[in-house]
């Protein structure tokens, strides 16, 4: 039965307030966090739930936690049935399967009461700097074969009772992580942020009354479901398939097949099935179903209805499936710490399929990003150092526009300035520049790859690399050419030894590692490119004279 009507002005006020609470929860968390992922990469999420655990509103933060929140709330309620929750409680968990697919993401779910009646939940997640396990950051890929090597696993526990943090649980956690002060700070920041959001939610209930809020919730879920269905119904009915390959999961390993079959029923529902993909792999890169779902929902939103507020209603018409035991739906204890490297590729795979349904909305594949870590003992101080870098290059070309140069792809992070790196770590960056002729040619050119060279100024260090697209090129679309392959080269001005995209290497003083990101895919046939655009690219150096001749068949 549908809810009785509620006037549009009250509804507007309630919905706007709910979204504002979810946003404010996130900005509070970001401003006080220590973890780089939280403050630079918005690697966290916020959510408001009704008293049965239905998702009512979310802030616009990490897509990676997007689809995880509803499942997380359900698992919390399984462990803590509604009647057992008390004012002043808050539940903590980080299980890879229940949450967002790896241990560093801690979730806190706080029940909210008004006059001793449960009215809903506020929740937030945060990517912690460390959760213990095989390597700093708990995201080591190669050589990690089961989740128990990845750090501390927290099934739902009552972390806060009567408003007081359980010091025993806290001690248990902090005893298992590498940077206990920061983890403690971020766990507290999450709790404080939830508290402030909770008090605003209580105020909303006091202003409007529980009955009006409940009715408003039903309308919000129905309307957002309807809006999503309308958007999905506009996509021509049919099944659209695509497959691509991740290079591998470490030196001397096989490629991982990433396949999707997307079926639009033409009436407002869509199913994304990843079953044809590879099996689970013995490295910490598997994608638990919540993570798969998160990026699949993100991609559908991008294609169909990006601006729509995120609620359980908007997710209802989207079904995500993957064969049990496959790469995209592994069973515990599959290792998964480094699954972040997949986000660009999950999007690329769905984008490839969607290009067959909505070619004008799709784009050539992204240039792949690079996420190397240099670590060792700093000769100058005797202290350990870890230099973590993020490099992003171009977007694929799309109908009507060349790919944007050097923009963060699916995940959304800032880079780290050269001057900041050099101030804090014993390295020198020798180059940071576009690589001409690497963007996939086409009517609309893909963005260029990026070259970033690091010289080690320390006596020794270990490089652990995380990259991809060294084997399989970023595809072009609708007749556009693929982007150039990426590569990683040790001492490019010496013996120029190629390095593996997911390998670990010992370096010595003076070694230069040159990271060269792939170019992004082009869109549309080269012959259709505006000659003026080719000349402009030549003038700006995005292509060379040789590139103009070879890729665009034009004499400069």
């Amino acid at each position, binding site marked *: 039965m549908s809810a009785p009507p509620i006037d*549009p002005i009250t509804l507007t006020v309630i919905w706007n307030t709910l979204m504002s609470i979810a946003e404010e929860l996130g*900005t509070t968390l970001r401003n006080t966090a*220590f973890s780089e992922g939280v403050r630079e990469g918005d690697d966290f999420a916020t959510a408001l739930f009704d008293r049965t655990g239905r998702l009512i509103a979310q802030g616009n933060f990490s*897509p990676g936690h997007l689809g995880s929140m509803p499942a997380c709330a359900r698992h919390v309620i399984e462990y803590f049935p509604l009647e057992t929750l008390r004012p002043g409680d808050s539940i903590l968990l980080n299980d890879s399967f229940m949450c967002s697919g790896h241990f560093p993401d801690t979730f806190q779910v706080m029940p909210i009461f008004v006059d001793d009646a449960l009215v809903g939940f506020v929740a937030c997640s945060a990517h912690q700097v460390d959760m213990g396990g095989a390597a700093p950051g708990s995201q080591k890929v190669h050589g990690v074969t089961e989740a128990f090597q990845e750090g501390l696993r927290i099934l739902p526990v009552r972390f806060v009772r009567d408003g007081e943090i359980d010091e025993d649980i806290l001690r248990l956690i902090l005893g298992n992580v590498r940077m206990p002060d920061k983890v403690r700070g971020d766990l507290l920041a999450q709790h404080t942020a939830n508290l402030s959001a909770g008090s605003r939610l209580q105020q909303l209930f006091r202003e409007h009354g529980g009955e009006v809020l409940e009715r408003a919730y039903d309308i919000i879920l129905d309307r957002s479901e309807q809006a999503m269905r309308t958007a999905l119904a506009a996509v021509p009915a049919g099944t659209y398939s695509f497959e691509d390959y991740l290079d591998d999961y470490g030196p001397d390993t096989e490629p991982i097949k990433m396949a999707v079959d997307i079926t639009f029923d033409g009436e407002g529902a869509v199913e994304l099935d990843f079953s044809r993909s590879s099996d689970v792999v013995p490295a910490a890169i598997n994608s638990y179903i919540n993570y798969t779902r998160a990026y699949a929902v*993100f991609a559908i939103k991008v294609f169909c209805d990006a601006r729509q507020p995120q609620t359980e209603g908007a997710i209802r018409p989207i079904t995500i499936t993957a064969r049990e035991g496959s790469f995209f739906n592994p069973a515990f204890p599959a290792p998964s710490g480094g699954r972040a490297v997949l986000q660009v590729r999950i999007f690329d795979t769905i984008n490839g399929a969607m290009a067959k349904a909505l070619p004008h909305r799709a784009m050539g594949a992204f240039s792949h990003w690079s996420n190397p870590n240099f670590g060792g003992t700093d000769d100058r101080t005797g202290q350990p150092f870890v230099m973590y870098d993020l490099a992003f290059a171009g977007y694929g070309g799309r109908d009507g526009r060349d790919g944007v140069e050097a*923009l963060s792809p699916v995940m959304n992070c800032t880079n780290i300035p050269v001057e900041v790196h050099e101030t804090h770590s014993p390295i020198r960056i020798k180059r940071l520049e576009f690589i001409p002729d690497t963007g996939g040619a086409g009517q609309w050119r893909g963005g260029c790859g990026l070259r970033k060279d690091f010289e080690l100024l320390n006596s020794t260090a270990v490089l652990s690399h995380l990259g991809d697209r060294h084997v399989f090129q970023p595809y072009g679309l609708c007749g556009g050419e693929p982007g150039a392959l990426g590569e990683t080269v040790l001492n490019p001005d010496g013996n120029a030894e190629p390095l593996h995209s997911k390998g670990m290497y010992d370096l010595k003083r003076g070694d230069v590692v040159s990271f060269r990101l792939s170019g992004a895919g082009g869109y549309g046939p080269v012959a259709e490119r505006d000659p003026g655009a080719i000349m402009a690219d030549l003038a700006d150096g995005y292509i060379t004279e040789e590139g103009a001749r070879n890729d665009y068949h034009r004499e400069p």
Partner: protein
Amino acid sequence: MIRVAFDIGGTFTDFVLHDDGDDGGGDQTHVLKIPSTPHDPGVAVMSGLERLLGQAGIGGGAIDSVLHATTVATNAVLERKGAATGLITTQGFRDVLIIGRQKRYETYDLYIDKPEPLVPRRHIAEVVERMDHDGGVVTPLDLASVDQAIDTLRAGGAETIAVALLHSYANPAHEQAIQARIRERAPELPVSLSSDVSPKFREYERTNTAVANAYVKPIVERYMVQLEAALKEQGYRHELFVMQSSGGLVTPAIAKAYPIRIIESGPAAGVLMGGIVGTAMGRDHVITFDMGGTTAKLGAVDGGTPAIMPTFEIGHVRYKKGSGLPVNIPAVELLEIGAGGGSIARADMGMIAVGPESAGADPGPVCYGQGGALPTITDANLVLGYINPDTFNGGAMTLDQDAAAQAIKKYIGEPLDLSVGDAAWGIHLVATMNMENALRVVSVERGRDPRRYAMVAFGGAGPMHAARLARAVGIPTVIVPLGAGVGSAVGLLQAAPRIDVSITRVMLLDGDAGAAIAEIYAELEARARLELDQLGGGQAPQWRRQGYMRYAGQGFEVQVDLPGGPIGDDFGAQAIAAFNEAYLQKHKFLDPEARIEAVDWSLAAILRNDRGHGSANLAFSRNAPDTTGGPPEIRDAWFPEAGGYVPTRIVERRALSQGMTISGPAIVEEPDSTIVILPGDTARISDVGHLIIEISPEAAP
């Protein structure tokens, strides 16, 4: 002493002439608001000055001081109409400017573009050189590569050059050598060095600051020269002062050398005005709220001092970090929202949405009758009875209430099954909610408790929404200053000359840091003195020091006020204590275990405002109230607390005198602004004529 201030805005140019009556002629203030002439802002300035001098019955020779705020630099950047700029940078780093910081300002939108850089890649040239972060030379500067870069850029049509090399904040020698070379080889090209304009680390932001400075330099130079000549023609003999983004004044010579500093000149003056009004009313903590035709701006004054941020983004979208071009210049803290009288309302998913699309001034709201078809905030305010259709903007235009009502009915009322009044109220409410979200960012999120703040509301539409907005976040008092419609120009009259300098010196802060900090401040003071000499006067400035610090490992610095006076051995400890205080205020917790890292250091030198030695309130003094008006008018206006339309008292502001009180619901009208007083609230008139609304405690959230 007679002083004239003018603020050139996008839509209007505002003037204030103030005579403090020290010649025995009595205290007088004249204000004027005329349309801006965006193609040549000087045209409006000259015609306005002529009218203003006519009103006051004096000639240009009688003016003692001219103070000025302008959008000429901002508009050149926003419209990408600056000069063709060439950039010289370190070999291997040609793409720093184009790469930027890479984060999308909307996570869920993969179709957005980055802000377009001010220099295309073809106009960026590399030179062979390299410094390290300590300022040590890794690779000496190769002059042959410099010559080649200069020639390439000149051949490419560059009219102005920016030089931004890696780590130049630590050692400017290579940038300075390049400048010397350009002066020899291409003396016609103005040069902006990143080590001079903004010696701070983080290469993208520093490069962009130098580039933006170079980009607007020829335009600002031309504009200043013309303005000075025109003023001279009017018989004006003294120096012109220009408002900087920091809220301090400088001479045209400094504005021409560092035009990037005047980029937020007008809005800065508005915040300053809010601070002066607040201080005069005994309110040290003020939120300023300025709402005009296209945007609303929120600023803050803490403890009597306008809040200043060390960086600023030009062309910010929906106050999202990374959406604009960042520049390292101290600027008053301002949050700009796309909510103005012209913001368009629509029905969306069975609800009301307002903005960010705007009908602007052309075609403008439906009620202007200039072809606008979609309902706007102004249309809603008219239908709600808040705006007088006959006296809008001083009676310059008559508003079409029926057309406004029809548009609201068609686009909001009918789709949502609401009466016209309800629909108009919904638009007003949603517009206020949008601003409330921004106000929460400025207040709660940045550690300001709204209950301790007063709101100073101005701009044409500000005082219409102010009381509602204050209620929503719990601000107890709203002050609508006299001259609310020309607030920024009034603020100019109160500004003092000021120089800001800053530098990056990264260090771990411990008790022994005193000597190192003393060295940094000696360097900064020397730099500030170079410019202070140009400001003349020889008077001793008031110095203000700030550090930008964080826990080592964090990514965002906290702004820390450092003690004044000599820097002794205990200064490190004092700085640590100051950091703890600032951090606690902002983030509500401290981590005694963590190490503190200082990154940037800044120094402001503020001179006494000796040309405007009058007290803060003089600018607002005025003639006796005009009590000759007719009987109080009654108009129906919408107040949901009273159940919808109710007969509401309409009062002319010029008929109000000191000590009078007005109980809401009521509307106070003045030629360029309208004040809405809500049921339950009470307004009174201060001794100088400001209107003070006390928000009913029952209305607080």
